[in-house]
């Protein structure tokens, strides 16, 4: 098999999954799902351990056979092809570098298997790209975690795959290195223009790196979109809670005025633009009003008169504060809901805002979002960034 036969039959690097699912015995790891990854994009599959994201990735790689459905790369159906005949390469979570080969032979592995004789130049260029030239003769175990990770990327990229699959490649690195590698991977992706599909449980990582994020939960895609779209306008409580933090307030629809819905929560009246509501908007219905902690402004109750008109406002009492440098986080109990979170930038700190203080919380109604009240309000709250390994099965 030559380089040509692998790459020329596939015109596009787009990945299309249709009706793809995976069942292990009676356990459904991946529900039938439709997913299209546009060519040349950086696509993230985000979800907690065991949500089926790694299984989905492995089905694209061919390491796992789908129970139903098809995988297309460009317009080629690769569902029945073994992994070594697919023009995709994977960066594994554990890197899976070959311990018996030195770094340059690890990187050359894919080229050699395709019968390419003169690999020296390409390997040299690749090692330069990941800044490991001086380590070419070393064995994998002599490198640090970050270096091994870059070898794994180089070993995959040298084959110019149509799609590069990354299975939690940064999971084993410490925080600082992880941030650095995120930028590095993003740079490489922009440079080579290959479609990247990145599996991660770290929402921040997904948001920093990806153009498109698919949030997965219990084997299904909860929501798909650009990071800002997912963050500003989450479609389900799971997405609202899993991606960043959300305050969710149970409210009742009492009517509408203009483009806004009028809501009643506790004794307060709140407004929400109809366009930002994903629940049924009939009067008398219930919904969950969501608002991100940084969108809320805190004003001490003594200054309640200074709050501009047209903003949603509720009252509350501060129960806890924590100072984290750039911002301060407040926890506030309100008649409307307990444990509301507010993040305030430390620009002009009001020293009266201490635990026990009575405050007014107010925000622009257009920053709120409405969700169906029939969902579990706490979905997605379990911390997904605890670094738990996601097994294949």
């Amino acid at each position, binding site marked *: 098999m030559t380089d040509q036969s692998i790459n020329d039959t596939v015109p596009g690097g787009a990945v299309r999954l249709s009706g793809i699912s995976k069942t292990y015995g009676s356990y459904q790891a991946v529900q039938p799902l439709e997913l299209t990854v546009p060519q040349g994009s950086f696509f993230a599959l985000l979800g907690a351990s065991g949500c089926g994201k790694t299984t989905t990735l492995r089905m694209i790689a061919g390491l796992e056979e789908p129970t139903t459905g098809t995988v297309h790369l460009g317009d080629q159906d690769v569902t029945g092809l073994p992994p*070594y005949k697919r023009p995709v*390469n*994977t960066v594994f979570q554990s890197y*899976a570098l070959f*311990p*018996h080969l030195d770094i340059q032979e690890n990187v050359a*592995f*894919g080229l050699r*298997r395709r019968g390419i004789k003169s690999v020296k130049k390409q390997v040299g260029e690749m090692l330069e790209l990941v800044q490991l030239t001086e380590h070419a003769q*070393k064995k994998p175990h002599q490198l640090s975690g970050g270096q091994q990770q870059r070898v794994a990327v180089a070993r995959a990229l040298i084959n110019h795959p149509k799609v590069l699959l990354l299975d939690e490649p940064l999971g084993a690195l410490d925080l600082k290195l992880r941030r650095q590698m995120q930028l590095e991977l993003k740079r490489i992706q922009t440079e080579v223009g290959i479609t990247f599909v990145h599996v991660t449980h770290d929402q921040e990582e997904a948001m920093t790196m990806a153009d498109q994020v698919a949030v997965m939960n219990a084997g299904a895609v909860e929501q798909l979109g650009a990071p800002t779209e997912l963050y500003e306008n989450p479609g389900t409580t799971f997405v609202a809670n899993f991606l960043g933090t959300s305050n969710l307030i149970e409210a009742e629809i009492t009517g509408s005025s203009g483009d806004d819905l009028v809501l009643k929560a506790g004794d307060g009246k709140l407004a929400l633009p109809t366009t930002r509501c994903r629940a049924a908007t009939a009067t008398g219905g219930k919904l969950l009003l969501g608002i991100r902690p940084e969108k809320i402004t805190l004003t001490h109750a003594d200054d309640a008169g200074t709050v501009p008109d047209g903003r949603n406002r509720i009252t509350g009492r501060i129960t806890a504060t924590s100072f984290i440098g750039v911002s301060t986080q407040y926890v506030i109990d309100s008649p409307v809901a307990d444990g509301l979170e507010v993040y305030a930038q430390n620009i002009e700190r009001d020293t009266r805002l201490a635990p026990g203080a009575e405050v007014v919380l107010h925000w622009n109604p257009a920053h709120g979002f409405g969700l169906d009240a029939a969902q579990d309000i706490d979905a997605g709250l379990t911390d997904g960034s605890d670094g738990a390994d996601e097994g294949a099965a």
Partner: protein
Amino acid sequence: MRWLRRNLVVIAGVLTLAFLILPNIVVLIFSFNRPKGRFNYAWQEFSTDAWKDPCGVADLCGSLSLSLQIAIWSTIGATVLGTMIAFALARYRFRARGAVSSLIFLPMAMPEVVMAASLLTLFLNMGAQLGFWTILIAHIMFCLSFVVTAVKARVLSMDPRLEEAAKDLYASPLQTFLRVTLPIAAPGIAAGALLAFALSFDDFIITNFNAGSTVTFPMYVWGSAQRGTPVQINVIGTAMFAVAVICVLAGMLIGNRRRKQAL
């Protein structure tokens, strides 16, 4: 007193080493003996006669060559079969896998005489001609379990992702096995093979039962010990010891050089 306390571990180590090596030293020294009479048990005077003529005793080198042949063939046989069994046990789920896994250990646990006697019974009942082939079959049989144990441990500790990575990097199943699986399992296979060679080469009990009129080196030594021990036996023993030591040293040297190069 304090010196003693501080160096206790070293002293214990040296004493243990001496305990292990002393017999070999005695063998070495007595290979330069010129014994009076037929038994090489008392030091007389220094001589290199035996070293100059190691095959000087009737049948000695014949039995040595036979033992080496059997050892080589049974090592090859046991290593190939044992490696395949180890992979099957470590990788695949099949019926009676547990039973096979424990049965493999049986030859290691069973008293050798019992096994030797039952093998002889089996061969006689089958009407097999005792000799080279029966010895070889017996040796492969008891070496197998050691090879399986050594290789299985290695295969089980291997990251299955490595093979997936190879497949992902365009290696066909055969290439994956030859380029990744086999090299990584190689230390286990080599350990198994060395063990098999050593076990086969100096096995006496099972061989003695199943050899018929064929005489292997251990049988020769045993036989001659009844009538008198030629110095040549010490020469062969010392040479074997030297070869083993040289192999180990060479291995260590190569390993060291590789490590230095890599740094």
